[in-house]
């Protein structure tokens, strides 16, 4: 029972992070069919922001506020310099964003030097949940992530801008025909996705090894999330992260992490065969 409760909370931690990172990917996939391989670097930029603020004497919370801004700035520049010229060249976008990803990694290494960077969590210790005790910081992480996702959901469902975004995802030509500026919608949504990825990087920074190359693993995992869940919907995003995060957390108890990753990938590939458009295809009732 205790093991089950701990596994559940571990899974929730992982699911929260995957959903936050995957949000930007599902937006750029769903909106413009753009594959952004530099998305993992937004996570790294968020984590390095917290490290940098802390190394200047600032608090973790200040870092947590700066990280999404840094992510948004990086996302805005990437969209402006590179992606907007490659909307009709999907392979070109893949290659160019991969180049940017290598450049960003190497720049982080040149600026901050080699080796893992320490980030101090804002709170130490564990909380007593009755049945089990669990690290307090992870509980904070889960609640911040849940709040963010809820806010995003409300933004998409209840605001005019959200309506625009959902229209573009469902049918880009039709959205343009009714007068939505799809390119501006995409630019804003892209920077927003990058900001949320930066927030995710800041949230994991006390738990993970903060390295310039840390983004690649988040990139691979959150792409599974989008593929399994279906691109372009929040429900699909949550379904995909629950599948990948839950599966990984359960397997991590029994077998080595890399074997667990291999099994999750295999499961994702098999799922693609069974449900080619993901758990929640765009245009379905829940998208």
């Amino acid at each position: 029972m205790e093991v089950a409760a701990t596994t559940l909370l571990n899974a929730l931690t992982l699911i929260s992070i995957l959903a936050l990172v995957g949000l930007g990917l599902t937006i750029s996939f769903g909106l413009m069919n753009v594959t952004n391989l530099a998305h993992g670097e937004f996570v790294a930029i968020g984590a390095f922001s917290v490290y940098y603020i802390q190394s200047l004497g600032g608090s973790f919370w200040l870092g947590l506020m700066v990280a999404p801004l840094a992510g948004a700035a990086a996302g805005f520049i990437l969209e402006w310099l590179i992606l907007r010229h490659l909307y009709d060249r999907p392979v070109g976008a893949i290659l160019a964003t991969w180049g940017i990803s290598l450049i960003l990694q190497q720049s982080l290494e040149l600026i901050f030097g080699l080796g893992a960077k320490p980030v101090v969590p804002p709170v130490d210790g564990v909380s007593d949940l009755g049945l089990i005790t669990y690290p307090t910081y992870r509980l904070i992480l889960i609640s911040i992530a849940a709040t963010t996702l809820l806010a995003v959901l409300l933004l998409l469902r209840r605001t005019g801008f959200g309506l625009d975004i959902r229209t573009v995802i469902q049918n880009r030509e039709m959205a343009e025909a009714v007068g939505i500026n799809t390119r501006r919608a995409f630019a804003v949504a892209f920077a927003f996705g990058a900001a949320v990825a930066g927030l995710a990087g800041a949230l994991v920074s006390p738990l993970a090894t903060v390295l310039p190359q840390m983004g690649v693993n988040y990139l691979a995992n959150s792409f599974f999330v989008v593929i399994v869940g279906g691109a372009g919907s929040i429900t699909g995003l949550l379904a995909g992260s629950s599948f990948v995060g839950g599966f990984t957390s359960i397997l991590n108890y029994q077998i080595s992490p890399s074997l667990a990753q291999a099994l999750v990938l295999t499961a994702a590939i098999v799922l693609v065969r069974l449900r080619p458009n993901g758990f929640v295809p765009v245009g379905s009732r829940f998208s």
Partner: protein
Amino acid sequence: MRDPSWLIAFAIGLLLLALLPTWVDSYNLTVLRDALIFGLFAASLDFFWGRTGILCFGHSVFFGLGAYIMALVSMTPDIPLPSLLGLLAGITGAGLLAGAVGYFLFFGGVRGSYFTIVTLALSVIAQQVAVSWSSVTGGDTGLIGIPPLMFGGLDLSGDVASYFTVVALLATVLLGLWALSRGRWGRILTAISDNEMRAAALGHNAALRLTMTFVISASTAALAGALYVAMAGLVAPDLIGLLLATEVIVWVAVGGRGTLIGPVVGAVLVQRAQQEISSFNPSLWPLIIGCVFVLIVFLLPEGVLSIGTRIRALFRRGAA
């Protein structure tokens, strides 16, 4: 590229490679030999990417799988014909993996970006498995002491002999892939990449054709990987990882996608540049590779060899 000009380029290249040992010393010959093996690897990716337009971001998985299987089989004690069995096992293993991936993805309707991403994830995971499954793969350090190529009594381990083995194999495979891609097979692939629904309406099984092309491409990559470990004598996780998967894309993109010869030239030139640059600052290389990616996309989408065509077009316009 038109047929005669491809064959002329092929013949000139082959002649050059055949005459090279007369004035190049044995150290540079082995460097070129290794570069040509990676050129074969680049051509294998080009056969798939260039013909179908679908980018595989994890081709190093097949190169590395061929390499590891070759190492494991040929190091098995008391095995008859270790080199031959190792090569065959490596090629078959990679072909089977590609067949499985192709079955689930292509028959599942996955094309384009999704395929690229799944194969990218495949190479991330393959490297993790190669590092952590240390009882078989030797972990981070890999395996050393892989026997050189021997077929019965035929010893191909000398510098010149191994160089000519690689050149002969490269030439044979290039000709085979070229014949395949300019014949009926290649035209069906072009039809599929132009408009899959129409190709399917004409009775072509697109998913099967893509899977078979992927299997051929992966098996060729495994052949290159197996050759490489037999020549180098060691295998390590960087032969299966994401960095190599990235570099092979650069070689193909620099040399020119869809030309088969271009990627070989690209592989040799880029590796030469890498050695020069890494010798004075090793951490500069990933930065330069990154810039090359961006520059190629924006300035030279057809590869470096296209500069010639462009200049010719410029002159023609000037003359007219």
